[in-house]
């Protein structure tokens, strides 16, 4: 009986265990000239910074997956919003706050479009978001004429507001601002998912849509709202991305949707809906980010990295499939 409980506990914690294992292996193998390049504070902060963009998108994706839907458009929304906010600031001279609000609005608009098509027109999320993925990417390229818009900070014509640069800064020269934004958002959404009615309703809809509807949950409104949240989170990631690379590029963000799904899946979110946690997604994103970092530090070919990632996703989801039985 006791061993059964331990087994269940081990299964439940397997992604945490995997994270710890990768951490330990990384700390051991990354010693160069008697110095540990992985455990270096600056490197660890790099991992966090790299994780934060994918992590922020994955927060939204987790909610969508819990609903039993999927959002393929987030990557293109990242491209559109990073282009859009750069264009608005550099070409149209918008200030920091208006630019941020406009960016969030673009995201919300796409989420609204996705949500309306899915709830009111009863289309499948996969198709709707596949379509809006095309639409957003096309709009982004049209807006910027296919090329990136470089961001230089300062006051005056053609310069982005200096406040925007904060998004790529580090506090005390160490802790990256994006990571702080990510962790704050994660805490907020963890709270929402575990402590609020909205969170419970999401799980309910994902678990059994019909029953939730009959139980008086306004399924359509919640779906619509969740899709808007997801696209707005993608907009936040887009602004961070634009600040990080000092450029708003219409081709940025391609493949981000799959990275986000991968983080969720590794973290234990079920693609069939009704199951998943924010903390799991955090761990999934950390595993992916840490792996990227270690493979990069060891100078592993970036194409080999792709393969390793692919195998990792299979293993992770396979372990969960067993857990269900």
């Amino acid at each position, binding site marked *: 009986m006791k061993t059964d409980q331990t087994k269940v506990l081990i299964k439940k914690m397997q992604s945490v265990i995997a994270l710890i294992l990768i951490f330990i292996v990384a700390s051991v193998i990354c010693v160069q000239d008697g110095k540990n390049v992985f455990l270096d504070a600056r490197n660890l902060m790099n991992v966090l910074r790299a994780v934060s963009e994918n992590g922020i998108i994955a927060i939204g994706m987790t909610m969508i997956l819990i609903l039993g839907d*999927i959002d393929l458009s987030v990557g293109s929304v990242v491209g559109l919003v990073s282009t859009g906010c750069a264009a608005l600031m550099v070409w149209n001279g918008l200030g920091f706050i208006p630019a941020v609000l406009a960016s969030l609005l673009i995201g919300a608009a796409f989420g609204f479009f996705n949500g309306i*098509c899915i709830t009111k*027109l*009863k*289309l*499948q999320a*996969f*198709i*709707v978001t*596949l*379509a*809006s*993925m*095309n*639409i957003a*990417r*096309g*709009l982004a*390229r*049209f807006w910027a004429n*296919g090329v990136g818009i470089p961001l230089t900070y300062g006051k005056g014509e053609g310069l982005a507001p200096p406040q925007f640069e904060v998004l790529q800064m580090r506090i005390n020269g160490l802790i990256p601002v994006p990571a702080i934004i990510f962790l704050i958002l994660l805490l907020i959404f963890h709270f929402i998912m575990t402590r609020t009615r909205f969170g419970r309703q999401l799980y309910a809809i994902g678990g059994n849509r019909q029953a939730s509807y009959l139980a008086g949950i306004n399924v359509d409104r919640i779906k619509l709202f969740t899709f808007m949240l997801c696209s707005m989170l993608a907009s936040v990631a887009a602004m961070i991305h634009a600040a990080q690379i000092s450029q708003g590029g219409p081709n940025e963000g391609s493949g981000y949707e*799959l990275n986000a*799904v*991968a983080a969720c*899946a590794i973290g234990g979110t079920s*693609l*069939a809906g009704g199951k998943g946690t924010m903390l799991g997604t955090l761990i999934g994103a950390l595993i992916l980010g840490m792996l990227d970092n270690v493979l990069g530090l060891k100078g592993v*070919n970036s*194409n*080999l*990295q*792709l*393969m390793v*990632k*692919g*195998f990792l*996703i*299979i293993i992770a*989801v*396979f372990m969960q*499939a067993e857990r269900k039985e």
Partner: protein
Amino acid sequence: MREKKKMDLGSLRELLLIGVVIILCIIWTIMNPQFISMNNVTNILRQGSYTAIAAVGMTMVIIIGEIDLSAGSLICASGLVGAMVCKSTNNVVLAVSAALLVGVVVGGSNGVLCAVGKLPGFIATLASMTVLRGLAYIITGGNSVVWTNEAFTKIGTGYVGIVPIPVIIMLVVIIFGVFLTSKLRFGRYIYAVGGNMEASRWSGIAVVKVKIIVYMIMGVLTSIAGLIVVTRLGSGQPSAGQNFEMDCITAAVVGGTSMSGGRGKIIGTVVGVLLLTVLTNGMTLVGINTYWQQVFKGIIIVVSVLADTHTKKN
């Protein structure tokens, strides 16, 4: 009586789509008479051929209730293997069989992961998509692969009479797909498993086997498409076929295949491919900005799926 009505609605949908294609053709011809020239028509058919070939397989995968995201990477990988074998052995038969073998192996492993490993098809094929793409870059070192054998090049560029060889291959594949899904017991199994997997299992269908075979068919058809793409391009590129899977899925869905499985027709998919190809070809001929083309493509998807849900409701 009821059965008959349903069938009418089904073919109505394809007729509707063909109507849209014809209207599009008329519009493009008015805007640019070049559109209807022999040259451009063969061009459209050739452009559509490899998408149609893989989309036939994708339709079966979707009908069975799964998805294959690895098609784009497999197009690239199978083409590369074909090109490399042709380069080193100068033997077309060997090159083609090697490419098809890649398709069988990749499709089979997708199927095994999905049916035996109980992974969602989305995840299993997402993983094989990244693995294959990575492999393609590793084995080529990022360089393109060229060959000298003329006969191999003919697969994508040759003609029989005035008909391009890819178009002939496409027709064979379409006939195979239609026959398989509508006339054979195996085809009915595909619909049954997609409609209700549990019920199919209880009624004695070897669900695992059916799934694996469907994924294998998908793999083989994709590698045929890969051979056409690579021989048309004239060289194997490790970056080829990106987002190709989305084109196949789009064509299937535009053609009336339901993403939740159990419903769909090969002919619908073929019309879907035709619609998308005519759309892109015409937009380019008329000189619509490529950025806008993407936007229109997205809108077309939503509108056509919308039409689908409404024919269903009636």
